[in-house]
């Protein structure tokens, strides 16, 4: 039942009112595109009309003054029209080619970058971390900033064998597409939940809480007279699902929390089917504010891949070709028992063949 105020459920504004004339005119009638230089897309319509899109990096977290500044640039160069991409970059939509250079000049002058097109590393899809969420095992924005500072040259150039899509999520909920990214950075807890026996009875429903644990590690217990729960530590895989349903189960821990790194996932169907990311580095402790070990680990994977991969070989396809043993050898990442799946479908990840390289 909708509420009674006259205006609810109006939904989002209709997109049409935001489209520049050149798009309205050529909507659905685009013919081809080129990428004349990094960060600049040239779309040509059947009518012959041309639309230039200039792609600018952002931190995703953005302040009202910056939003106004973007609006100003849109007015100055794009007849007031601009868009964001699915990876949190801004695209300025230009019809007059002459505006491209001055726009880019303005953008750079203000400390932003132009790029992210073609075979480059675009913006990192990421999450809230310590800026806003309650369950993070690490921060999001600070790692993204530190990694992209290191990789910014790959944003502003198109010299890689293929695209690299990087994603970061600060806990196993994986807000974003961490599970299907060329490189994924994932916050991970390594200590079973601490139970707050005082609050628990007040704020949580014990049956729901017990049901929430995929490994049945939680069972009812009575703690000094009050109904509560206890955790079978050895059954806990630190997934955090109990915490989501019950705030009295906290996993956060300054020493035990950190990040793991995943590789080889993708979403597009180009050449190969969509694929999950696989574990590369099981654990790196949190080291704020710039997580140098995480930055180095990501850089290492990018470097080894970019030297070794063939054209159009995204990380996962590169590994398909050379094999996982070669991946660990070339990247010098240590292979551990943690890399061997032991969850639901574990058996399917065993190497059931005599085929091997020597």
């Amino acid at each position, binding site marked *: 039942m909708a509420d009674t105020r006259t205006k609810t459920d109006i939904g989002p504004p209709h997109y049409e009112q935001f489209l520049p004339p050149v798009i309205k005119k050529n909507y659905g009638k685009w013919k081809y595109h080129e990428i004349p230089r990094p960060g600049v897309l040239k779309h040509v319509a059947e009518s012959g009309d041309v639309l230039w899109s200039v792609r600018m990096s952002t931190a995703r977290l953005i302040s009202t003054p910056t939003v106004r500044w973007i609006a100003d640039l849109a007015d100055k160069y794009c007849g007031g029209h601009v868009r964001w991409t699915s990876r949190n970059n801004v695209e300025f939509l230009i019809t007059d080619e002459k505006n491209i250079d001055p726009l880019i000049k303005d953008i750079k002058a203000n400390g932003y970058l132009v790029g992210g097109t073609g075979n480059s590393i675009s913006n990192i899809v990421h999450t809230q971390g310590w800026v806003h969420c309650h*369950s993070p095992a690490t*921060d999001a924005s600070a790692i993204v900033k530190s990694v992209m500072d290191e990789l910014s040259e790959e944003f502003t150039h198109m010299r890689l064998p293929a695209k690299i899509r990087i994603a970061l999520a600060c806990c196993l909920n994986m807000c974003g597409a961490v599970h299907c990214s060329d490189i994924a950075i994932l916050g991970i807890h390594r200590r079973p939940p601490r139970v707050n026996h005082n609050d628990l009875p007040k704020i949580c429903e014990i049956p729901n809480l017990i049901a929430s644990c995929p490994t049945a590690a939680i069972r009812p217990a009575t703690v000094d007279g009050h109904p509560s729960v206890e955790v079978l530590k050895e059954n806990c895989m630190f997934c955090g699902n109990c915490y989501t349903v019950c705030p009295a189960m906290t996993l956060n821990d300054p020493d035990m929390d950190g990040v793991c790194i995943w590789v080889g996932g993708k979403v597009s169907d180009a050449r190969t089917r969509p694929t999950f990311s696989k574990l590369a580095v099981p654990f790196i402790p949190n080291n704020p504010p710039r997580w140098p070990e995480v930055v180095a680990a990501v850089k290492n994977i990018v470097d080894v891949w970019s030297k070794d991969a063939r054209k159009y070989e995204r990380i996962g396809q590169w590994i398909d070709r050379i094999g996982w043993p070669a991946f660990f050898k070339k990247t010098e990442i240590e292979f551990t028992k943690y890399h061997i799946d032991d969850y639901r479908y574990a058996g399917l990840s065993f190497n059931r063949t005599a085929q091997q390289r020597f």
Partner: protein
Amino acid sequence: MAGKKYDTPLCDKLEKGAWPSFITEIKKAAASSPHGYANGVLGQLEASYTEKIGHWKHGGIVGVMGYGGGVIGRYSDAPDRFPEVEHFHTIRVNQPAGWFYTSKALRDLADLWEKRGSGIMNMHGSTGDIVFLGTKTDELEPVFADLVDKGFDLGGSGSDLRTPSCCCGQARCEWACYDTMAMCHALTMHYQDELHRPAFPYKYKFKFAGCPNDCVAAKARSDMSFIGTWRDDIRIDQAAVAEYAASGKVDIQKDIVALCPGRCVGWDGKKLTIDNSNCLRCMHCINVMPKALRPGTDTGLSILIGAKAPIVQGAQLSSMLIPFYKPEPPYEDVCDLVDEIFDVWSENGKNRERVGEFIQRVGMGNFLESIGLEPTPEMIAYPRDNPYIFFDQESDGEEE
């Protein structure tokens, strides 16, 4: 600029470097904001970097009248140290399809959020919303009123339909096999009630991509993924092919023939041929030579179902449900299918069980029966490899 300023040496280290700095953004917000939120968040972040732990409490239920979603309640666990962010609720604002804006719309949003909140936002959240980061409970109704006033509405949160999103599609892409923005907007409007009033076992997401490149990662992130495709032949401009070959930018044998998953591209040095009956509509050859190759003209979309992140049973990618559909506004038959699925899943799904997990639990065969779809081989990567067949027990020997 308002509110106490905190000393933030660690945060400040994050202002250096080539990439835009979120810390700088927060400071800009602090400088221009009439409120103290931004300073508070900086202070608390500094504490997090120092102590290696977050300082937000588990969110409580807050929201606006008549809506069950759209707001994420958030409170500091150290309000004594950071009183400015004792409350720091998030508001999810449904973005316009394709994330197109005019400068005016952007200024409207900036003005109202500066007035009533932290001045910090995400453009955009991972689901696609405009995310207003941080305000207090008693500002929620006013923010909502101002938003509606400017023609915006809230997005989804909780166990409801989440804010749908789409690639820019036909607005700017020559490969869009259907109008992603029109369909995304139409279904968003059609399902306003489901979007604003959580009544499902868990969240449900729609994402619309104009072709199999899937520029909104629908196949990985949406319970229902609408992926453009085509049934007829790839359009070839042989002259343009020759140009690419001549330009030396493309080695057709290496870059295309060898990488085609359908093994159906031929190249004799002069003419490019495609055995379209074996083409998998993967987009690769088109991606490499956009001037020479284009999807066919008998276009439409595939509907895939079930993608999700790992909680609770493990992550899933969407799987094929409807191999080909020709979308016609107002998309009634799609809505009928969606309604069927909502009914069956709402009726039988467990709490916090995404539709993908529901299908795995009850079995795809049973799920299809319950929504009235015939099983087809397109829905599976391969038939069962185990002999544990749950034969209907009514059935007699006369099955084959």
